[in-house]
């Protein structure tokens, strides 16, 4: 009885394994339709990117036709609402660049050091405390940073700017100078013979301390005497943007540092290198492509940010004097777009509307190229295996 049943089942299975021609066609069409729908939906980000480029270019193009490139990139006279409108955006490009530069000067050293600390120095339990701090910094909306910059930080800068800056300078410069003095006196004393080495070292150290004390006190006095006319300036925006860019830089470069692996670290320690030497001479060079990518992403974050610069940078479309003077107000591309669109909105079609798209195109191209470069760097390093 049982045998007979098995026999019958075999036949059924055998016949079921073969699909009928109709069913096969039906299934293949079905799967093809399903597959192409899937690809279509999956391409949504590609389509979105293409559309973004198309629509920004489409609305930027009339501006270049009406006004050309020369004034846009060559002049810093920005008077879009005058009868004889002028669209010199040079100062605005420089403003964006300056604010971003300031942000990067702050966030790259702090971010890379923090990521080194996270990957190699902090014990595991402390790491679990620091990670949420970074996530919170990343999660706080940009308008909140902007609000803080405008309502808390700007008045602080305006009232106690000089003492704030000088205190910050002391915090940075004193350890830096100390390290510099120690290293140079060690290197200098290395050139002498053994018996005078100790004396020469002390002498070099004392001389170095004197020199650095002189310079630091000069800098301190200079900064302490500074009066900041307005708290909403490039410095304010830079510092806040720097804090905003930190989480990106820290997390991306920490990933890169972790990818370096134990082998290399052990190799270096086994040769008698200290932790600092291992990190600076082996780990960081090995992770440099990832760190570069982190810096590029940080730059992108800073240059594309709107609310903070709109609220905190002062929005004055002129080139600071000298160009690196962070204490003057500046105006950035993003803030110009956000601020001027409200007024340009009603007169869709005029150069005033299209010039904002021209700026957006600039931003878009910059973001696209940086993203491409960082991806290339990462891909290349992955291929070469370092």
């Amino acid at each position, binding site marked *: 009885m049982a045998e007979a049943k098995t026999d019958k089942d075999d036949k059924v299975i055998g016949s079921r394994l073969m699909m009928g021609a109709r069913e096969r066609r039906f299934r293949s069409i079905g799967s093809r339709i399903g597959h192409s729908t899937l690809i279509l939906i999956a391409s949504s980000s590609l389509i979105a990117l293409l559309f973004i480029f198309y629509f920004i270019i489409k609305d930027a193009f009339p501006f270049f036709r009406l006004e050309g490139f020369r004034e846009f990139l060559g002049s810093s006279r920005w008077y879009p609402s005058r009868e004889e409108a002028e669209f010199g955006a040079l100062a605005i490009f420089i403003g964006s660049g300056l604010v971003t530069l300031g942000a990067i000067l702050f966030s790259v050293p702090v971010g890379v050091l923090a990521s080194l600390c996270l990957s190699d120095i902090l*014990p*595991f339990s402390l790491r679990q405390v620091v990670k949420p701090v970074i996530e919170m910094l990343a999660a706080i909306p940009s308008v909140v940073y902007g609000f803080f910059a405008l309502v808390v930080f700007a008045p602080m800068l305006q009232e106690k700017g000089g003492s704030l800056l000088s205190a910050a300078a002391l915090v940075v410069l004193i350890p830096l100078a100390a390290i510099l003095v120690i290293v140079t006196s060690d290197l200098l004393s*290395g050139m002498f013979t053994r018996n005078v080495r100790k004396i020469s070292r002390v002498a070099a150290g004392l001389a170095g301390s004197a020199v650095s004390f002189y310079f630091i006190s000069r800098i301190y006095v200079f900064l302490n005497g500074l009066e900041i006319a307005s708290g909403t300036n490039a410095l304010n925006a830079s510092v806040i943007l720097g804090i905003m860019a930190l989480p990106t830089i820290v997390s991306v470069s920490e990933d890169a540092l972790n990818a370096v692996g134990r*082998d*290399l*670290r*052990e*190799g*270096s*320690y*086994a*040769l*008698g*290198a*200290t932790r600092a*030497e291992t990190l600076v*001479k*082996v780990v960081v*060079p*090995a992770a440099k492509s990832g760190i570069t990518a982190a810096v590029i992403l940080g730059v992108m974050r800073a240059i594309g940010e709107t609310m903070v610069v709109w609220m905190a940078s002062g929005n004055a479309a002129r080139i600071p004097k000298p160009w690196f003077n962070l204490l003057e107000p500046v105006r950035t591309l993003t803030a110009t777009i956000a601020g001027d669109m409200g007024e340009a909105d009603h007169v869709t079609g005029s150069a005033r509307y299209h010039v904002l798209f021209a700026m957006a195109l600039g931003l878009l191209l910059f973001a696209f190229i940086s993203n491409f470069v960082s991806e290339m760097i990462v891909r290349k390093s992955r291929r*070469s*295996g*370092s």
Partner: protein
Amino acid sequence: MDFPGKKDLLKAESFSVFYGDNEAVRKVDIEIPEGLVTAIIGPSGCGKSTFLRAVNRMNDLIPSCRAGGSLRLDGQELYTQGLDVVMLRKQVGMVFQKPNPFPKSIFDNIAFGPRIHGVRDRSKLAGLVEKSLQQAALWDEVKDRLGDNAMGLSGGQQQRLCLARAIAVNPKILLMDEPASALDPRSTSKIEDLIEELKGKYTILIVTHNMQQAARVSDLTAFFYEGDLIEFGETSQIFTKPGEKQTEDYITGRFG
């Protein structure tokens, strides 16, 4: 053990290593003489690598790891407060299981150790690099491309580079943690030849799971099993007339 004319370089007395609560090396007593090649064998997880890494305190990098008992190098207690780990590691070279050259040029790889220990003179460095590469039998292969990235070398060359890198700081003792396990047979035999050549110049401590290798290259052999040192003696004796049943079982392939 008594070897005429050889003083003991490394001496462990009731030495243990713990990972958390787990005792990975259990109360080991061993005296390793200078100038010879000592092989440490045993099944995986027997504590042989842990013991090796205890000699240059590489285990310090693992947070939960601590040591007990006494381990002396040249009379100096290693596990004591205030021991300079940096100077210890300068005297104890190490070659790892997987070749781990730095992603730098061949020259910079070899010069890394001397540089951090204060050699800055370019010609002196060049001399050191050449000498080390020659000792590692790599000089002829790479002398025309010292500036190339070391990652471009073959696996066997990379491992010899790592050996040269370790030699360049002029250590007293060389630790090798299964140095040939990631290499093909030809590269393996080159490494074994090298060990033969370096014998006498350096005291070599080599961990291996390959018994033929231990038999070929070492003067002395220590057999570890589950954290215990079971037997230690001249290689010829261990492989022909082992004193312990467990050693015999392992060597004849009954387990491990």
